[in-house]
């Protein structure tokens, strides 16, 4: 049938993913118009490069987060895993080639390969530890990975300090990495992007076209039924948590390359939540069983595009408002996904006492944000306008309800 191939083509993206794509295009277009420095016109290559690099670094471990979430779990530890992976890599290089590392000289490709292998192996070990805590000790995934979230970062710092104390004259909380191979990765954005796209394609194939992928979805959808259907659920979980930790370990290597340093105290701090946010914005359900790779990729792109847009428009460092933007994007994306595209006829946004108390909170938020970015009086004006609009909405909702 000729129609089949067309509908197959459309099925590459679901409806929510098309709207996400549309939102990405809209965010780029709005930034291009509003940004007074016109960075997207004048330096398109640099802008694209920044967004592509940031997206690839976030996207790599977002895919891991998505697989764990689809399998019905959660991995809160990926930020700390990034720090540990970088530290293991740098410490291994320091141990194998201390003179070259301290003299900022090349350590040789063999040492780099061994160090990167050690990082990925660490990811496998951490994933296995998670699975053991969850399936044998029977901790809830949230608790098990919360413990490693705080524990692994501390462990990485201890490893860094005792490693530098033993191998170099001074104890240090960071290790500089100056090998040319890492510099090449830093200077060629195509490398992280290619790795990300290959990993995304492999994950897509895994989830949609393999038996293991189907078992991951079944596990996330109904764990007891999956076990009774004869699926070795513990082994499937083992894969999911190892995939989550190893993608974070892989991302950790790119963090080290990008910053030329392994810094366990701050590297990747809080980024686990960005990865979970990318998966959720891309349509993964935290109750498990639901989610796609194209959605997660688009979710990561959307987050980075919006963060970039805001930093371009208000001309501050992207990191200042990053958390706030991620928070707002998650709320809006999930709200729209639940509403199914349009607001329901009978839904009220500001009902009862809770609605009354929400009006000043939203007005205050809008006002203070405007005040911080555009000056005090603009903030007061925005806050008052927002408050007035919300009061009008409340009155309108109240009258509509009375009329019914």
């Amino acid at each position, binding site marked *: 049938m000729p129609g089949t191939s067309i509908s197959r083509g459309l099925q590459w993206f679901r409806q929510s993913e098309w709207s996400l794509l549309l939102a990405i295009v809209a965010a780029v277009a709005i930034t291009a118009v509003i940004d007074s420095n016109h960075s997207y016109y004048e330096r398109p290559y640099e802008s694209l490069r920044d967004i592509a690099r940031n997206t690839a670094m976030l996207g790599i471990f977002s895919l891991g987060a998505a697989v764990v979430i689809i399998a019905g779990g959660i991995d809160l530890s990926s930020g700390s895993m990034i720090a540990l992976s970088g530290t293991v890599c740098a410490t291994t290089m320091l141990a194998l080639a201390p003179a070259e590392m301290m003299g900022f000289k090349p350590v040789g490709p063999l040492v780099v390969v061994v160090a990167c292998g050690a990082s990925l192996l660490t990811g496998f070990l951490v994933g296995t530890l998670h699975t053991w805590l969850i399936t044998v000790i029977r901790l809830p995934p949230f608790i098990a990975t919360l413990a490693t979230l705080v524990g692994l970062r501390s462990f990485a710092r201890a490893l860094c300090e005792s490693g530098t104390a033993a191998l170099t004259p001074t104890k240090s909380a960071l290790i500089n990495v100056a090998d040319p191979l890492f510099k090449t990765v830093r200077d060629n954005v195509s490398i992280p992007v290619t790795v990300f796209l290959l990993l995304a394609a492999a994950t897509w194939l895994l989830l949609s076209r*393999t038996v293991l992928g189907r078992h991951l*979805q*079944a596990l996330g959808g109904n764990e007891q*039924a999956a076990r009774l259907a*004869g*699926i070795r659920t513990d082994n499937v979980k083992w894969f999911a948590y190892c995939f989550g930790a190893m993608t974070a370990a892989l991302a950790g290597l790119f963090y080290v390359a990008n910053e030329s340093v392994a810094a366990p105290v701050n590297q990747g701090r809080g980024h686990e939540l960005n990865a979970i946010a990318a998966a959720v914005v891309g349509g993964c359900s935290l109750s498990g*069983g639901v989610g796609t790779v194209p959605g997660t990729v688009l979710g990561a792109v959307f987050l980075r595009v919006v963060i970039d847009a805001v930093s371009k428009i208000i001309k501050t460092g992207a990191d200042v408002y990053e958390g706030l933007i991620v928070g707002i994007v998650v709320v809006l994306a999930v709200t729209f996904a639940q509403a199914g595209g349009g607001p329901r006829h009978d839904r009220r946004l500001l009902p009862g006492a809770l609605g009354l108390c929400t009006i000043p909170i939203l007005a205050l938020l809008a006002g203070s944000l405007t005040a911080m970015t555009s000056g005090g009086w603009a903030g007061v004006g925005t806050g008052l306008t927002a408050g007035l609009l919300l009061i009008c909405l409340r009155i309108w909702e109240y009258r509509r309800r009375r009329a019914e």
Partner: protein
Amino acid sequence: MTASSDIAVAMRGITKRFPGVLALDDVTLEVGRGELHAICGENGAGKSTLMKILSGVYAPDQGQLEVAGRPVQFTDTRAAERAGIAIIHQELALVEELSVAANIVLGREPRTALGLLDQNACERLAADLLAGLESSIDPRSRTGSLRVGDQQLVEIAKALSLDAAVIVMDEPTSALTEAESARLERTITRLREQGRTILYISHKMDEVFRLADRITVLRDGRHVCSVDRSETTPAEVTGWMVGREIADHQFHGQRSPGPCLLEVERLCLPAAEPGRPDRLADISFNVHAGEILGIAGLMGAGRTEVLETIFGAAGDDWTGQVRLHGQPVRFRHPREACQAGLALVTEDRKRLGLFANLDVAGNISLCSLAEATAGRLVSRRREEQLVAGPISQTGVKTPSPRAAVTGLSGGNQQKCIIGRCLLTKPRVLLLDDPTRGIDVGAKAELYALIDRLCREGLAVILTSSELPELLTLADRVIVLAEGRLTAEFSRAEATEQKIMAAATAS
């Protein structure tokens, strides 16, 4: 019809649309005060939707509701409760982590003079209500730890605690044993003596004809008729429900059992917590190829435990011997049981069997997906070819193999799960209460399917909370009481009375 002041509830011209489905089409229903009004219809006929509109869960698209002669509009279930309408939902709506007492008073907790939660009053109230149902459930036990039948009793007690003038019972006995159903019927009699109006949804014709004053039949979202019980017969009502005559089949005749396939000897399963009696004690039976062995017993008698233990799903601390084809086997995971040729259709379809996030094909192919691969990748086309067999074999009615499984009726969902089991090419099929919550028409189809599979040489072990079902299908029946085997009957010897006597033996 009675005068308008004697009408407790009237629903006029009710229409309700869901995306893609016209669930109710201009349905009108009048229920007299103090009447027990049975509502019959196949699954998907609109019974539950109509009752959810009456109890404020859904708002109708068109039509009018009247309670005690006054037009009303319910925005939520609280509004319906204030108007004196309580509903016992078919799908259990209990908070599993809370105690039985806390569930019964949920949202209407009694308080002390200081405004604190009055724990004692909660438990007293719950104990009184449960005593009224002649149940020995401890009000302090965690609701999630109860079996389905006991949870259903808690749900009933919760609705009774509202002290409502109109009580809607949506298939209240679908998870109850005969003895529990009899207790519920006594409760219904008491409620009627207090002058309450009851709307009663059921598939079970014997119940309907024992209890009801009037019977309303729905089919495909339309009102077929409302008649006095004395003016009709069960066969006529069943005919209205399905729109065709259903023969009352006996399936067990002329089967020729083959060699013994599965033998179970002195099976014991210790209690999950120390200090409680063993879950199973000293149970021995066997089942032959081409034979259906029925397991009867009250809720909690150990029917599910027997199947789960054999299937390797109940842990590894059981003792005794299981022999398959004469060889001793001991399964530590359901996977090993599947590979050895066993298949289990679980008791609670939604909780233990169905994957709502997968489509129809995904649900059926799950255990055999490796057969639908090209290279190492799953081929959608091959998967659809693979599931076409079980879909036609079990008669699943679905618009396409890629349709959402949640869009199918309960009977068709169950056929999907049986189809999943058949794809693993089992020699022994374990069916744990397979027709629970399934309508009459689909039940007859499932009976025919089970009979056909058995004639093809499968050994079938079937548990059921409905004795007529066991008597219709089984060649032999064993009876469990409190984890012990109390009787075994051949088909010729078995009667409902004998089985009940054995099931309640102590």
